[in-house]
Structure formats: C-alpha cells, structure tokens
C-alpha cells in the first residue's frame, strides 16, 4: 500500500509542473495590462512603460516564465501587483474559508447523496426512485447563483431564520486565528456563541454549493447499487437469508460505492470552481472571489497562485481518493503493482 501511495504522489508532480507552465502561458497571452491600471488616470505612455519595466513585465516571456517557476518551487508567489502584499499571505487568508465551505458542502452532499442513491436503487422505479430522480435532475439543472438568491429570499428575508451573508455575525468579530476556519477556531477559543453564529452562516452557502454534488453522488450511487444488485454474490446472499437492510448497507453498498468515491474526488474540483458564484452571492471571502478580483484587476501573479493552489488541493484530494478506493477495495492497489 505504501508503494501505491508513493507512486500516486509521484505521478501528480509532472501534472503540477505542467499546470505551472500552462497557467503562466495563458495568463500572459490573454489581454490586459496591470501597468496601465497601476499608473493611474493621467499617466503618460512613458510612465506606463516605466512601471512595466519595474515589475519585469517587459522582459521576454521565457525569462518571466523561468523566474516564475523558480519562485513557485521556493514557495514564493511574489507580491500582488495591486496590494503590494505577498500573494502567499493573501491566499493563506482566503484558502481556509474556501476549504471550510467546500468540505462542509462535500460532507452534506455525501451524507445525503449516498443514502438517497441507495434508497432510490432499492425502490427501483418506485416513488422514492422517482423523487430522487427529480431531485438530482433539479440539482444539476438549477444555476447556483439563482438558487442562492432564492434561499436568501426565503430563509433570510421571509422566514428570518438564517443570516444572509458573511461567515459570522459582524458584532461578534472573528475568533483568534489558528486554522483560518471560523468553525474550528471558534471552538478552539471556547467561544460557543461564535461557533453557533458560524454554523448558522454556513448553512445557506453550503446547501447551495452541495446541491449539484448531492445530485451527482445520488445518481452514481443509485446506478452502482442497481448494477451490484444483479451480481451473483447478492443472489447467493439473498438465498442464504441475509436481511434486506444488512445486505444493502454492508455487502451491496461497499461494492457499489467505489465509483461514487471516484466521483467525490472529481466533485471536489467542481465544488471549488462552483464556489466562485456562491462566495460572491453570500460574501464568503474565499479563493473564488479573490480569483475574480484578480481577473478584473489583471493581477496575474495572484491569478497564477490561485490556479496553482487549487491544482495542488485538487491533486491532494485525488491522491486521498485513490487511497480510500484502495482501502475499500484492495484489488485497486493490487492492479497497479
């Protein structure tokens, strides 16, 4: 197993290097010039050229790429062209918010999606199956920004039971920063009031973000269970007198869920990219909104760093998924020997 894990990790390195190069090239070929914005309203072309030279934007693209790769390898993403602060510092401020939201959404999607998919399969073509089908089609079809606004209007404005935006009540301030996750930091600080507020604040964005994932997981689980139910060992288990619940929950689900686990890994990437719209509507100060601001300001250093960090997180999650798959089904690791 250790060799399998090591191999999976090594395989991600070339992919990450390719990502560094690709994102750099893309960021430099798209139009937009940060020097113009930095120079201000009345700046002359000479002043703009001067700023371009100071930030190294006038050097050959190969030289800029080499500098960029060297900086990334040493963990230095440079300074944001606009704020003047280290990009790594700005990302460290934003990343925990996105991870917190994504993990809670993924938890909701998985905790509800797998049982729903199982129930739908067990009630094949029955009322539960139809209901789950409607839910999953709806979950995939509904635009997240629309759903977000609808949830705000109903739960915050009409019912007045959940907050509209942000991570925590403004009057409470933020807990002392340890991990950057308000949920965890408020518990570490022993501030139950902050924890309760953070829980209330994450409900609507997490539900909005979770819905498409939930639909995907439910659909994959359903088809996996339906396929497994046709297998000979299930027929044998039935004949041997195993109870319906025990058979489904232990034997069928374990064999059926492998495809779902792969989907969860892929979903993680989709959730992070989907978080852009959700973060904007709910004022969730994560990487998504940071990326949008970087795009609008042509702050290419920030943009490169965000892309790379998301790529690394995605790669790590996929390694974890591979390991989980191997734990569920040891044949996966065996096949890679």
């Amino acid at each position, binding site marked *: 197993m250790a060799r399998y894990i090591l191999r999976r990790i090594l395989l991600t390195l070339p992919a990450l290097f390719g990502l560094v190069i690709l994102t750099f090239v893309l960021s430099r070929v798209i139009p937009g010039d940060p020097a113009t914005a930095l120079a*201000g309203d*009345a700046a002359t072309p000479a002043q703009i050229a001067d700023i371009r030279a100071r930030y190294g934007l006038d050097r050959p693209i190969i030289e800029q790429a080499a500098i960029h790769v060297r900086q990334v390898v040493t963990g230095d993403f440079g300074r944001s062209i606009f704020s003047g*602060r280290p990009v790594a510092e700005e990302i460290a401020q934003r990343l925990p918010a996105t991870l917190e939201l994504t993990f809670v959404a993924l938890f909701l999607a998985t905790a509800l999606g797998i049982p729903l998919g199982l129930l739908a399969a067990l009630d094949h073509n029955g009322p539960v199956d139809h209901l789950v089908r409607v839910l999953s089609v709806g979950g995939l079809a509904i635009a997240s920004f629309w759903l977000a606004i609808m949830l705000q209007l109903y739960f915050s404005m009409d019912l007045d039971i959940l907050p509209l935006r*942000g991570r925590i009540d403004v*009057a409470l301030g933020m807990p002392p920063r340890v991990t950057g996750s308000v949920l965890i930091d408020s518990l570490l600080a022993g501030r139950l009031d902050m924890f309760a507020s953070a829980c209330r604040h994450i409900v609507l964005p997490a539900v909005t973000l979770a819905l498409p994932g939930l639909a995907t997981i439910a659909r994959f689980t359903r088809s996996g269970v339906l396929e497994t139910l046709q297998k000979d060992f299930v027929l044998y288990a039935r004949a041997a007198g195993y109870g319906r619940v025990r058979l489904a929950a232990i034997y069928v689900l374990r064999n059926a869920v492998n495809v779902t686990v792969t989907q969860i890994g892929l979903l993680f990437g989709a959730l992070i990219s989907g978080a852009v719209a959700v973060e*904007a*509507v709910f004022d969730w*100060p994560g990487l998504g909104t940071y990326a949008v601001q970087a795009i*609008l300001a042509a702050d290419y250093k920030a943009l490169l760093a965000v892309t790379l960090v998301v790529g690394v997180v995605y790669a790590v999650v996929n390694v974890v998924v591979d390991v989980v798959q191997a734990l569920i089904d040891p044949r996966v690791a065996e096949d890679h020997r």
Partner: protein
Amino acid sequence: MGFRRLRTTLLAAAIAAAPMIAAPAQAQQRPMVWGDSLPATLDPHAIFDVPSQFILLNAYDGLYRYQANPPQLVPWLAASHTTSADGLTWEFTLRPGIKFQDGSDLTADDVVYSFRRLLAMRRAPAAAFTPVLKPENVTAAGPLTVRFVLSSPYAPFLSAMPLVAIVNQRAIAPHVQGDDWGTAWLSANGAGSGAYRIVPETYQARVALDMERFPGHFMGWSHNQRPIESVRSRPVMETSTRVLALLRGEIDATDSYLPTDQVERVDRNPRTRVARDESMRVFIIRMNNRKPPFDNRDARLCFAHAFNYQGFNEIVLRGLVVRNAGPNPNNLWGNPPDLQPYNFDLAVARRHCDAARAAGAPLDREIEIHIQSELEQTVQAAQMFQADLRRLGVNLRIVPNTWPNITAATAQAQTTPDMWIHWVSTYFVDPENWIGQMYDSQFHGTWKASSWYTNAQVDALLRQARGSLDQAERDRLYQQATRQVVADSPDIWVYNTLNLRGLSRRVQGYQFSPVGSGGEMRLMSLEN
C-alpha cells in the same frame, strides 16, 4: 451514570457555557457596518480609485480637503498657502499642534516625506504631479512650512492637493524593505493622523477592515455630539445581496451606486432610505477618432444623434440621473451656461450618416462597442444604441470586456476599440480632471484621452488654462474649449450621475461630496 446525575451534569455545563454565549453580545454596542467597497491596499500612495478615498478621508488627512456638494476646497492640515507671481512656487503653512494617531507631531518634514514617497513610488496618485514636480523640489522651509517649486505653472496643483495623504514617516521607517518605501507594511497598516484609526489585525484586503475613532484628531469632535466609535467596513460583492443586507439591517450603508430599480424598494422600507446627491461623474460613450468612420465629423454627429438620451436616462435609469451636455459635469465651473446637448433624432442622424457615407466613411463595416461586463448600465446603453443604429443601417457589435483589458488597449490608437463606455469620476475638482485630460492631445495613450481627438486650437486653450492662475481667465478658456469640443463631437456625453446610496435610518449626519462619495465618518452619528 443515572438520569439524575446526567441531568445535573448537563445543567452545570449549560450554566458554565451561558456567559460565553451571552457576554459578548451584552458588552458590545453595535458599530457602524459600512457595506461599500474596500481598496486592494491600504497604502494611500499606492492606489487611487473610488474605494481608496474611504481610507484617505478617514484614516489620513491631506493639506487641503473637499467638503460638501458642490465641493469646496478648504484648508485642512494646512492653515493657508501662498503662490508666487509666476505660479511656480507654492508655500503651505501647517496648523500647529497636529498629532499623528501614535501621538507624535505632524511637521513639514512629514509632508516632504509623503510627497517624496508618492513621487518615488510613481503609482496612481502621483500621475497628477509627476509632469510638474520633482521630489527634490519639495522642501521644508520651516517646521511648519512646506515649499513646492514646480517646473512649469500648473493651476490645478491646489485642486489635486487632497489626493495626497500625509503619512507618519517614523511609523513607516522600521518597516521599509529595500526600496519599497514600506509599501508592504503600509498596505495592511495605518500611519496617519485621520479621524479613524485602522485596526490592522482586522484587515483582509477587499473583505474586512475595522476602524476605531481617534479622539485626538486635530479638527476635534465638537461638531459631532455622538460620533461613531467603531466602523466595520464589510464590502458586499453582489448588488442583490447588498440591498437585501441593508433591508435586513445587516449593513448600515450600501455603495453609492444603488441600481435605479432598487431605489423605490429601499425607500419603502421603514428602516432604510436612499440618499440622492448630484455627483460629478459623467457617463460617456467613446469613439476612436483615429479610426474610420469616426475620423469623419458627420459620422460622429450621426452617432451623437442616434443615442436615445431621454429613453436611457428617463426610462432605463428612471430619471435618477441628469442629462450632461459636454465632457465636464454640469455642476462644475468652466461650462458655457448656454451649452446645448445633442438630441436623439434619427432623421438628423440619417442626414449625417448619408453625408459621411458620401465622403467615403465606412459606416457599413461592423463597428465594435466594448462594454464592461460587470457594469450593467454599460450593457444596457450598448443594447439600446445597437437597436437604434440598426434602423440607420449601422451594425454595432457589443463586445464584453473588462476595465484592465480596455484601458490597456487604449495605449495605442490602432488597438483602442471603435467605441467603449465608461464613467469619469471625480479625482479632483477642476475641469482638468475632465476636459483637460480627455481632449488635450498630450494625453494620448491614456484611457482618459482614448477618443484620440486632436484639435490644435483646443490644445492651446487647455494648455493656457492649465498654466493660468487667474480663475476668471481659466473659466473663460475652459468654456471656449468646451464649446469647440462639443461642436467637434468626439464622444457622446450622456449624463451626470446622481449618486444613490442606501442607508439605514439610524445613520445621521451623512454628507455627500463628489470626492469620497459621502464616506467621511467623522460627520456621521448613529441612533441605536
């Protein structure tokens, strides 16, 4: 564990946890929650845009400041100033006894340091000064006297003075790294004398910033019996969320660009209101005068008569803007009192189009208009224009774009779009901010001068106005230049903005000024 013991344990745990839940809410009075944008950096010399004015007005002070509407330039850190007869030497005398927020004295040396820092960094706010001011020509003529020697007469010098925040060099010095002038540190900290002190540990770029009142501010607090003690700036990104947050009481103020379709809704709510103030922010549709067909005056006049000003201003924007006839805002000096705007008249437009076609102007080619995708009004204006131009046989293609892309493209005439839409905001209150920088050909290559208009007579008038210290003469020269520019029709001027800010009714003392958009906290109080 028996049931009784379990119940006792749970009760004890609940009693122990109760203070943790209740205490903070009781101890804190609700602060002002400001929902407008925050800048990308807190360094006042590194950026100059509308959000950065919030920091400039509250955490810092300048030698002069704009107050009220129409904006009056009033002495601020400076008590007075003198100008030499040739307009080159300016001396400012500081008020005595001014303290920075750390308790140290604010002296002429700090002013010199601030200007030299600004000029050395050469970032956005410096652009107004670099053509006429060298760092070594800013000197301290005494502990409270600062001398500026300009390389050529520049009348808007005083008008641009509020752009420059005076920073505390002693606070910055320990944090300077190499030649960065302490930018990295100042981007997330404060070093000013302003009425509100930045709380650095609360700052997250563009996300959150807390500020606390500075009781020792040099202007004192006698003007405000119930000043706001704590300001929590929490920008709300999405318009719909911003409006809902105001209605729900989660924020006390929106930005000052409330969509016109939300005005009635905010006004109807018993807890909120809309502050309406005529600003100095002109909505403009640019035409690239170097590219055919816009190098032909008839073609430009055709377009100027083909935009439905009334339909856009009165119907789309519900009459919450003011028609603006020329490049300067209506409410600024330097405008001819009898200046007539172009009217929407497709028959007149057709005559000009025919004349332009007869002269060989390629009006049959597809013409691109670049809009700023995230700004809905630019999209609406382009769509309306597209429909009316189609009736004249002109094919207008709408190209979604972003501000950095468009402004980068305006560096050269060939890459500047055929047309694009933007506003010109108030950076300093002088016609130089509008007509001066937009239509003097020496600014070609900047986004403000992106129509690439050239008229030697206008250039001469604008340069004369820039160099004159006689206000009456400047007024006359700008009026003359404005008449000529409007007659040449290089662009399409649509409206002057009515700033619309949603406010909680507990906010009192809100005073709008086009510079800073009413974000000056020292004037406001809160009813709890």
